[in-house]
């Protein structure tokens, strides 16, 4: 399964990332990070339908640090 989850270090970063995507017309959803991945993040992730690399570029360009990506069930 291709990665569709973006992990973050803080909830503020999650919401800032979501806002950056929204401004570019990309839908994303805040979800609780799967338990196995939670230790290296803030416990919340953005689930995206779009190409994850495009989403990451937008988020990073907005100055938001991410904690990695992972695969999970589609939204």
């Amino acid at each position, binding site marked *: 399964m291709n990665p569709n989850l973006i992990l973050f*270090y*803080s*909830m*503020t*970063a*999650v*919401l*800032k990332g979501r*806002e950056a995507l929204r401004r570019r017309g990309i839908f994303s959803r*805040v*979800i*609780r990070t799967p338990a196995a991945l*939670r*230790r*290296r*993040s*803030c*416990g*919340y992730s953005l689930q995206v339908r779009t190409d994850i690399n495009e989403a990451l570029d937008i988020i990073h360009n907005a*100055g938001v*640090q991410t904690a990695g990506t992972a695969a999970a069930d589609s939204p």
Partner: protein
Amino acid sequence: MIYLDNGATTFPKPRAVVGAVCNTLMRFGANPGRSGHRLSIRASEILFRCREQAAEFFGLDKPENVIFTQNCTTALNTVIHGLLKKGDHVVISSLEHNAVLRPVEALKDEGISYTVAEVVEGDDEKTISNFRSALRENTALVVCTHASNVFGVKLPAERIAALCRIYNIPFCLDAAQSAGIVPISLQNSCIDYLCAPGHKGLYGPMGTGLLLINSDRIPESLIQGGTGSLSSDRRQPSILPDRYESGTPNLPGIAGLSEGIRFVRQNGAENLRARELRLISLLYEGLADISEVVLYTEPPKADSHVPVLSFNLKNRDSEEVAALLSENYDIAVRAGLHCAPLAHEHYGTEENGTVRVVASAFTNHSQIQACLSAINKISKKARK
């Protein structure tokens, strides 16, 4: 009641602020950033919206650098205690509130010294020169009020900040009496840290404050604890704002603060200040005509004052005058030292304090006239 104690906290609050507090308590009362359920995420969104509001209002491009604190004092303590180390020196102004004076005084026990730079009302050049003279090789921070909470005198904050930048010294601004009243933009500013109460000129509820970090120099956190993030790590997260926000935040208060900032943005800080200054000027002019009244500052002006005015009646204790205004005329003002003994020493009022009147967006012309009339009557009784 005629409420003119807006320097302590603004009252009343805009209806939208009250509504946001109630709505949050009734509909979104979950702990933000802790759980995965919808309500917790919604609560986190409320915090984030307020961060965005504050960041936009103060011209900061990073909402994560907006830190929620309990009040302005906590924000100031975070910067002062979080930056200074043994052997450091700090410069403050002669108009400081105890929110700055007491932390730097306490740090003397830890080998940190401080110098007080004299503020010269009406002479910014002299004030800046005094700050320059106070700097030392080991000066690690300059922290000063934007405007005196007692006398309303405004300091040339941007110019002091620019001076600090030349010497690579961090500058922290105490905007307790200016946030929401004097336009402040951190964009292209030399202000490194901005500390503001949420419950005064920003019209939020009590128990809210802001620290805006506009620097790569990140102070240590005063407290450590649960942030909802990186929970398996025993160390405090370094990422902002989590570094400073351990424990459950004041969600209803922050929801209210968000609406308070929106209220100020809708009305315009400059418009609010101009209107309030007109009212305080009216009071000043009226008081100047009463022979028993002692005034301490020049007539208030937009570029050098905020809408805060101190006065006394000759041979009357300031607390006594405030009590008479309260008991006989139902007018709320604050008397005494206003937690700012340094400012009172500067103006020679440390023995008796002063009576302080502060306007807000909800103060009107007739209230100021009623206050003036009451002071006039009290002064006539004193004359007899």
